[in-house]
């Protein structure tokens, strides 16, 4: 047996915990069964699904994160990092072992659900969706806990990760509860909503598991090049593109939309990574050292993911620039996202430089808050004040419109240079 799985079972599946969890679950389901005229039916089916969400999804995610956080607090994580366990055994040992009690409760819920419904293919898809959602959520919780290891266990989970997780959970709940009754159209093909949603959630869960694997690699000092991020951006781009274009559309439109969606995803990923991963002021010196020694693979391995995402965005932006722009205008209600890549890239470069500068200056625990305040000032408060004061041209300088590409670039380029100089100074101050 996987030693990490075994250890988690020893620690997490204690008799008192199992007894109390099964007692609570049994009481809830028995109550619903009693008020449903002592029969299994729609009420018990809904109750079973709700209990699955509470016990397996929510409690399981809590157990997964808490188990690893406990490792950090009780200072046993270094012992694990020094063990011979590879990232995969370590990951699945934690991912399945820590929430084992929650999965056991989930098994009971599934049993009650199957007793309450007429078993059809839809039931199978629903169960797949629930299991994938639970696994994905547990992986997400583990990612949060692993990020704590980088930030120091005294810190809390990154606020941005909590926000992203909350939004993802809302979207997930919406896709499960508010299922479209008609078919889902993707790349011009119609798919039944339940299998489509189930497959989508399973794919997302697989990406989350893979993401936690890569983070585990980082913790265990297993060297990897950041191709997985490109894969995830490509997956999101394909997902988005499929909802707006059809396979019968022109190849230029399909590829252009794919590039444009990928570009937006890469930019969003850059911002998210800049928030989520603890900034390392030592990084420029380390990367410079590798570059001086021509260790390019090392540069790729240790580059922060926000920088890697920005490089991907730059590549896709160049592709979009080469492609023209008119031919890849997004159709339908997506057209409001039309805009040139140049200004968006400059916005991102400016913001990410400022983020790094803040990371060099601010105390460790205040970095994320300061970054969020900067964003609020730069994109909302200062332009709004300028508008209200009637200084519309100043507002345009503060937040240029991306539609007017050349003007926006001309305004943003000096801002990027100033941000770069300020960041360099902040970094030098930190390193002194």
């Amino acid at each position: 047996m996987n030693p990490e799985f075994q250890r988690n079972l020893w620690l997490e599946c204690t008799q008192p915990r199992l007894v109390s969890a099964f007692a609570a679950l049994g009481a809830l389901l028995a109550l619903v069964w009693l008020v449903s005229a002592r029969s299994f039916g729609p009420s018990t089916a809904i109750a079973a699904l709700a209990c699955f969400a509470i016990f397996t999804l929510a409690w399981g995610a809590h157990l997964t994160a808490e188990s690893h956080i406990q490792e950090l607090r009780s200072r046993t994580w270094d012992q694990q990092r020094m063990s011979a366990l590879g990232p995969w055994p370590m990951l699945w040992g934690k991912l399945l072992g820590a929430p084992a009690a929650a999965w056991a409760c989930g098994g009971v819920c599934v049993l009650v659900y199957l007793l309450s419904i007429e078993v059809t293919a839809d039931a199978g898809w629903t169960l797949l969706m629930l299991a994938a959602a639970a696994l994905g959520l547990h992986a997400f919780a583990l990612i949060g806990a692993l990020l704590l290891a980088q930030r120091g266990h005294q810190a809390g989970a990154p606020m941005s990760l909590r926000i992203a997780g909350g939004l993802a959970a809302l979207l997930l709940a919406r896709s499960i509860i508010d299922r479209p009754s008609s078919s889902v159209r993707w790349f011009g093909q119609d798919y039944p909503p339940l299998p489509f949603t189930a497959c989508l959630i399973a794919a997302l869960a697989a990406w989350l598991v893979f993401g936690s694997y890569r983070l585990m690699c980082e913790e265990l000092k297993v060297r990897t090049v950041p191709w997985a991020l490109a894969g995830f951006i490509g997956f999101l781009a394909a997902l988005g593109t499929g909802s707006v274009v059809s396979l019968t559309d022109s190849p230029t439109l399909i590829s252009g939309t794919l590039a444009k969606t990928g570009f937006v995803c890469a930019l969003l990923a850059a911002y998210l990574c800049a928030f989520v991963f603890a900034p390392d002021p030592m990084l420029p010196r380390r990367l410079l050292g590798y570059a001086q020694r021509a260790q390019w693979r090392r540069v790729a391995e240790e580059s922060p993911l926000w920088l890697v995402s920005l490089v991907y965005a730059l590549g896709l932006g160049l592709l979009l620039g080469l492609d023209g722009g008119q031919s890849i205008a997004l159709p339908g209600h997506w057209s409001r996202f039309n805009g040139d890549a140049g200004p968006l890239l400059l916005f991102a470069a400016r913001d990410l430089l400022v983020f790094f500068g803040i990371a060099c200056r601010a105390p460790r625990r205040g970095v994320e808050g300061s970054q969020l305040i900067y964003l609020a000032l730069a994109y909302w408060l200062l332009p709004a004040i300028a508008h209200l004061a009637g200084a519309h041209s100043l507002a345009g300088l503060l937040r240029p419109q991306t539609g007017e590409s050349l003007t926006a670039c001309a305004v943003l380029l000096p801002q990027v240079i100033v941000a770069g100089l300020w960041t360099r100074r902040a970094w030098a101050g930190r390193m002194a």
Partner: protein
Amino acid sequence: MIRIQHLSHEYPGVRALQDVSVRIEPQSITALVGPNGAGKTTLMRCLCGLERPLAGEIEVDGINVIEEPRRSHERIGYLADFFGVYENLSVAQCLEYAAAANGIRSGLAARVLETATSLGLADRLQQAAGTLSRGLRQRLAIAQAIIHGPQLLVLDEPAAGLDPEARHSLAALLRHLQASGMTLLVSSHILAELEEYATHMLIIDGGRIRDFRPLAPQLQSTRSLQLELAADAPDAMRLLAAQTGVAQLRQQGHALSFEFTGDFAAQAALLKTLVLAGVPVSALHPERVDLQQLYLDTLKTPGSPHES
């Protein structure tokens, strides 16, 4: 066993290690000493592949730790300065997990018992780790670190917080591990106790190695010896000075101290010569090294860092 070359490590604003180069021989116990913030823990964590240095090379038993940290872990056992144990697991479960996680698949129970016995934990196997005393926890943590039979054991402040009896027992344990073929690197602030077990002393200060010297007489080419006389012997000084390998002779009462170059056979021959010449020898033994003084002198001495 350990080869470190031009190792540098930085934290923002702090140069934790500066161009550290050292070579540590197998089956030795090296005491890593230095003031707080000298870089001891950073050096140990880099050695274990837990920190990524800015520059330099580290090899443990021929494996490049920076390039292949996971492979090097098979050969290294590490006990951090602030270590933890799984408080809710029994001692046996803690050891079973450590063994399995380090790749031991067969004979798990036997290995657990063997390790527990060698560390005096055999009668505590069913006790919860959280209920052990500080000294026993230390033993459990060391047992977890050595259960896979690493060639190198790195211990960061293992004696911190231990009572004198537990410290003495720890010293005996370290000597036992060395005798079983292990190489040990031990950081400590308690210099007086290093003499009990250390064969070498590595002094680090400000991220640089200030001194690296053998402590055990059998490892030194030149040893400080002390000859004790039972009575006055006016010719003893002259006779001793005329012997091969004797230098820096000084007398204090009935004690003659000198530096001696030669192996133990030469030392026995010297003693025989003195006795046959009628010198009233009551004892000949290595001169006690005051590590505390040696350490303080080294730190006070300005100059270039040690080159190894």
